[in-house]
């Protein structure tokens, strides 16, 4: 419970300090940073391992910042997290910050899964109908998944609308078993 509250506090502070307009950029930078941590074990250990001093970490991060063109605030934020040992919670903080940003902007994020690529006009009609349904602007992320066989699957928040052939087959199977 305590951990969750902390995550929310950090996400809140992040959005408040960079301002709502700069938030997407910062979140993207943090995501890139997180991806790097997942990629390189040594880099992860630099941030996690208490044997490294703050000065050492700072030096590495500064070099990185120049290469990755990270903003100063992002570096400061990561440095602080590393200093107080909260860095393992970074993915949760990012997730929480994204939720907060969408909440403040009255936006929603939808993941749309389709077996084939969808056309422009289909995309537009999907966007407008989702907007009508959710009563807010919708950011759509498209994912291709051939295992759906056909139809479309939309995930918004914790709700899933599934019209794919895969799920219809599954429902049909239940129906047949029930008799």
């Amino acid at each position, binding site marked *: 419970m305590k951990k969750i509250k902390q995550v929310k506090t950090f996400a809140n502070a992040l959005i408040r300090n960079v301002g709502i307009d700069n938030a997407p950029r910062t979140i993207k930078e943090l995501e890139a940073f997180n991806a790097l941590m997942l990629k390189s074990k040594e880099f992860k250990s630099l941030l996690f391992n208490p044997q490294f001093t703050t000065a050492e970490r700072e030096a590495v991060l500064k070099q990185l910042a120049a290469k990755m063109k990270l903003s100063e605030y992002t570096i400061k934020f990561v440095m602080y997290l590393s200093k107080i040992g909260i860095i393992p919670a970074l993915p949760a903080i990012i997730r929480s910050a994204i939720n907060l940003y969408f909440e403040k902007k009255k936006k929603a994020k939808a993941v749309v899964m389709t077996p084939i690529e969808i056309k422009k006009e289909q995309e537009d009609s999907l966007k407008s109908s989702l907007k009508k349904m959710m009563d807010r602007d919708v950011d759509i992320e498209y994912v291709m998944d051939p295992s759906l066989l056909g139809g479309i699957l939309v995930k918004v928040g*914790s709700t899933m609308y*599934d019209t794919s052939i895969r799920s219809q087959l599954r*429902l049909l199977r239940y129906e047949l078993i029930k008799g």
Partner: protein
Amino acid sequence: MSINIEGIKAEEISELLKKQITDFEKKVDVSEIGTVTYIGDGVARIYGLDNCMNLELLEFPNNIFGMALNLEEDSVSAVLFGEDKLVKEGDIVKRTGRVMMTPVGDALVGRVVNAIGQPIDGKGPINTKETRLVELIAPGIIKRQPVNQPLQTGIKAIDAMIPIGRGQRELVIGDRQIGKSAILIDTIINQKGGDVICIYCAVGQRRPAVVNTVQKLQEMGAMEHTIVVAATASEPAPMQYIAPYVACAMGEYYRDNGRHAFIAYDDLTKQAHSYRQLSLILRRPPAREAYPGDVFYLHSKLLERAAKMSDAMGGGSLTAIPVIETQAGDVSGYIPTNVISITDGQIYLEPELFFGGIRPAINAGLSVSRVGGAAQIKAMKQIAGMLRLDLAQYRELAAFAQFASDLDKTTLAQLERGKRMIELLKQDQYVPMPVEDEIIVIYAGTQGFLDDLPLEAIKSFEEGLLRYVRVEKQDLRKAIIEKKALDDDLRAKISAAIETFKKTFSA
């Protein structure tokens, strides 16, 4: 739906399938989802599922179901009823909107099912449409009535001294391997041909032990009125935790339909262990002996569901006999004291008695039934009323008499009578006795017909007497069952029968 496979053509099958498919409505499958963030030890932590209910059934991939137990701000923790290896981090979990249910009904009788009501005896699917909630609040006060009908266990010592009534909760407590399960099995066998449906719930037992029990029940023809719910030691902790509730729901079906059911929980110590394991993995705060704070409620909510319903509710009953295993006879442990305080009495089995050859090894002093005489037929009450007290006194006297060199006549007589009664109450396994036989045998003992017989002859005398009564004095047994009480006339007849047999008996 049952289909006779033979004599069906391929076209007919496809026609049948087509008919079913035409009724199938294509609809959007809207569901609330979450993602698995942790999985292990039969427990999953799920991010999302904002509107999830407590105890709601959740659907995991690969047809695995789970039950939500901890609802937190951002996440839900659930126990899995299946292989946790088939679920991995990042998997999508769906809400079902249903609270856990189990199939119930007469189709289950004679079957062996697992902790979620699926058949495991290889006899095919169970054809029942009825289901019941697994977790239910026990019936209220108005819906009940006091226990007033006996549940005959067929064990002389229990039926005479610690009677169990229909709707009662009687605990069987004792160390390992001293005949706790034997009492339950004998009770189940004794319900043969009666109106009581038995449910045997095996929790945390070895699989071979369960197989043996089922085989024995089959041999004795007792599976015809019995359901076995098995969550063996090899199954995950959530299955062992839920099994007693599932078994109880099956019993409640009979209770609420005006019928009688008897349920044996073998044993609740193991269930408490699995609940402790679950709770620790769910990160619930541990309390005494690392059990969670609600371990009392775990057992009280289960045992309270055993009840004798009022006549307005159909008068059905659910009798529960839970088993608790103690360590070196210590009844003051956490779980034993909890369950002792919940139940309406206990049957305490003692290793010293067991290894001293007194089987069933019931300690008459520590065993009680708080329902008492209300759960006995009058005839039994008349002859066995003082038996428990007499035996307890005998024990005390016997300990004292070890130091005395010469004893007065009455004490000596009391000692001799006690020895014979103890001998008489011994009983072999798998041979439960009808109540009329019990009455005749105990009558012979309490009225002093055995006092002049040598101790070694008691067993053969008992066997011979019963054989004689069954063959020659069938009317006596009938009269006991019909009158349910012993009047002077009946007493005289029984005495005469015993005397006649005694004359022909030679040890």
